[in-house]
């Protein structure tokens, strides 16, 4: 029998520095991660395609399904909250008012939901092949942004029909939409990184997101809080960035004062959340294959 280690001559050049990649239980830095993502950038494109293309195959209505959930929910909410409960909507038609809230919220909740379950649905790949794991929650979220874009177009058309044109303020929708994306990404990263190991997360997140919709001013106007929350504390509502995003969305579309301070707090919170999410993800990334 041949002795293991002696048989094959070890090379002299076996210092860690002489290799392109060194794998150990040390975590890779954020810079390394970004470089890897750049190297694999083509994959992100194909993963987004993978998410987009099969979604409406073998359906009768096809891409029309993008609009269906938002439009149906808006109809039901208009009936329940607009006609029956008579929730005030700042003198705008309630349908338009709720649509302007539902479009960003639907994207936030559906993309957070899909990102939080993404690692679990990719579990079979996690133990087979390496690619930047960050793409796994990122790709379906980018795919959902297409729906978001369509939703924004619909709400723009509805607003211009109602108001007989659009104001320049509608351009604010671009930065606010980005803020919605960052918020969803931050939460999605945290949830998917923890949720792969603790499957409680997927049970909790689905109904928590539903409840959170009532905490955010989707069906009710933020102005209703004026009697409860003192004016000086209003910006702090931005600690839940979606509150500011929805208020900003409505202000850009339907007019009214833009909640600048609240949006500022929201931006800081979302960016901080993204940092936390990234660090958590990178920290847990190495154990994904063992946990999945």
């Amino acid at each position, binding site marked *: *029998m*041949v*002795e*293991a*280690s002696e*048989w*094959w001559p*070890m*090379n002299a*050049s*076996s210092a*860690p520095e*002489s*290799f*392109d*990649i*060194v*794998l*150990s*239980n040390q975590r890779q830095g954020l810079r390394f991660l970004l470089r890897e993502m750049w190297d*694999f950038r*083509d*994959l992100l*494109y*194909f*993963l987004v*395609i*993978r998410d987009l*293309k*099969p979604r409406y*195959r*073998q359906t009768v209505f096809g891409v029309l399904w993008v609009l269906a959930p938002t439009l149906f929910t808006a109809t039901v909410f208009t009936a329940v909250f607009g006609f029956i409960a008579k929730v005030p909507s700042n003198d705008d038609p309630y349908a338009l008012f709720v649509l302007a809230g539902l479009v960003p919220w639907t994207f936030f909740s559906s993309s957070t939901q899909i990102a939080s379950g993404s690692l679990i649905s990719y579990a079979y*790949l*996690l*133990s*087979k*092949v*390496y*690619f930047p794991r960050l793409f796994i929650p990122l790709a379906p979220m980018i795919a959902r942004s297409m729906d978001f874009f369509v939703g924004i177009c619909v709400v723009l058309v509805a607003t211009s029909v109602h108001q007989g044109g659009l104001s320049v303020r509608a351009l604010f929708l671009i930065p606010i939409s980005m803020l919605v994306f960052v918020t969803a990404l931050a939460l999605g990263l945290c949830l998917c990184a923890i949720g792969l*190991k*603790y499957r409680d997360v997927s049970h909790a997140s689905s109904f928590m997101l539903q409840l959170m919709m009532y905490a955010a001013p989707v069906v009710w106007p933020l102005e209703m809080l004026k009697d409860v929350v003192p004016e000086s504390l209003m910006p702090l509502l931005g600690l839940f960035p979606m509150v500011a995003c929805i208020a900003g969305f409505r202000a850009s579309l339907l007019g009214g004062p833009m909640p600048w301070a609240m949006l500022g707090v929201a931006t800081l919170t979302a960016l901080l959340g993204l940092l936390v999410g990234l660090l958590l993800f990178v920290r*847990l990334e*190495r*154990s*994904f*294959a*063992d*946990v999945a």
Partner: protein
Amino acid sequence: MSLAIHFENVIKTYPVHSLISQPTTIWASARSLFSSPLRNLRELSRLGNLNASGELVYALDQVSLGINKGEVVGLIGRNGSGKTTLLKVVARVTSPSTGWVGINGRVASLLEVGTGFHPELSGRENVFLSGAIMGMKRREILEQYDNIVAYAEIARFMDTPVKRYSSGMFIRLAFAVAAHLNHDVMLVDEVLAVGDVLFQKKCLKTMAEIAGAGRTVLFVSHNMSAVMQLCDRVIWLERGKIVADGLPQTVVRDYLRHSSDFIVSDRLEVKSNKARCIERVRLHDGSETTSVFVTDGPMHCEVTVLLDDEKAAIDLIFTILDAQSTPLITFSSEEAKLHTDLGRCLVSFAFERLPLNPGRYQLDLAMEVGRHHEHLAEPVSFEVSWPTNERKNFDHLLESGPIRVPVEWHCSSIE
């Protein structure tokens, strides 16, 4: 020569789930319903934790090893010996618990056929998706696309969703993508074990071409003849440790000799109360008991037969089968007219030059005594390989049949 892969004292552990005692009374189960979250949390937090305490399994146990660029290395060992874990560490799928691994060049991991295929997408879309997941750039896939389709031989179906494919078409397309990867280091795990025999041979041929192209290949397989044909070097793992590391012929021979439940070349049949039975079958190469033989080399077989009740003429019928249990050669001792006394006797036959090409074979045996029949409970397996000093010739090997016969050649020039 420079290193492609280097392992330095690599340990990979996995926590073992501890057994939880089941509550026996109603009160105890009600209590455990509420106390279980804490216990679950403790149990779950050990998962994937690199410094987990408690009972651990060592999937890799202090593995140090260097693999040079261009080497084709076979990894053998029983199930659970750590072969796949070793591959997964190089593939960057899991991290080592301690120690480090250095890699030079791009790594492609073919741990299964059809990595990343999506059933709803068309063949064409899947080629791009799967290629990108395995690390190809879009440009590279575009360049190789026609070759991939030609290799898979399903040009007509490239726009059909993959879920409508037959399993054969699926495997062909999936392997075609893998075969056109252009990485420095290729990790292959039993990919060859799928598809029909014809396709397996095509895969094996492609593997040989990949191996011949100067790339570094790590190849996990239980198919010893494939390992011996493809590899320059073989590493034998047992319980996460390297047992042997060296030339394929030597390591495979040692491995096969060692793992007696894998191939039994010296077997005692379970004796019933029968008066006549085959007691033992032993294969040897003229001196030592072995189950690895060489093409054109010697192979001996000894059979111990017990004959208790009557003196009779016995006839032993041997059949050599291939790995798929197709009979290849049958020969019987009838022509030798063997007569035995009562009691035990040893019957043997020998090939001076074994007429079999490299591969895995089985030897089956039936005994006829008068009107009675006896046969082996299970055929004896053995391997045939090329003589060590001979060059491997894949093409010749893959297109050839299993049996070798002496042929007389003539060559003369014609006016």
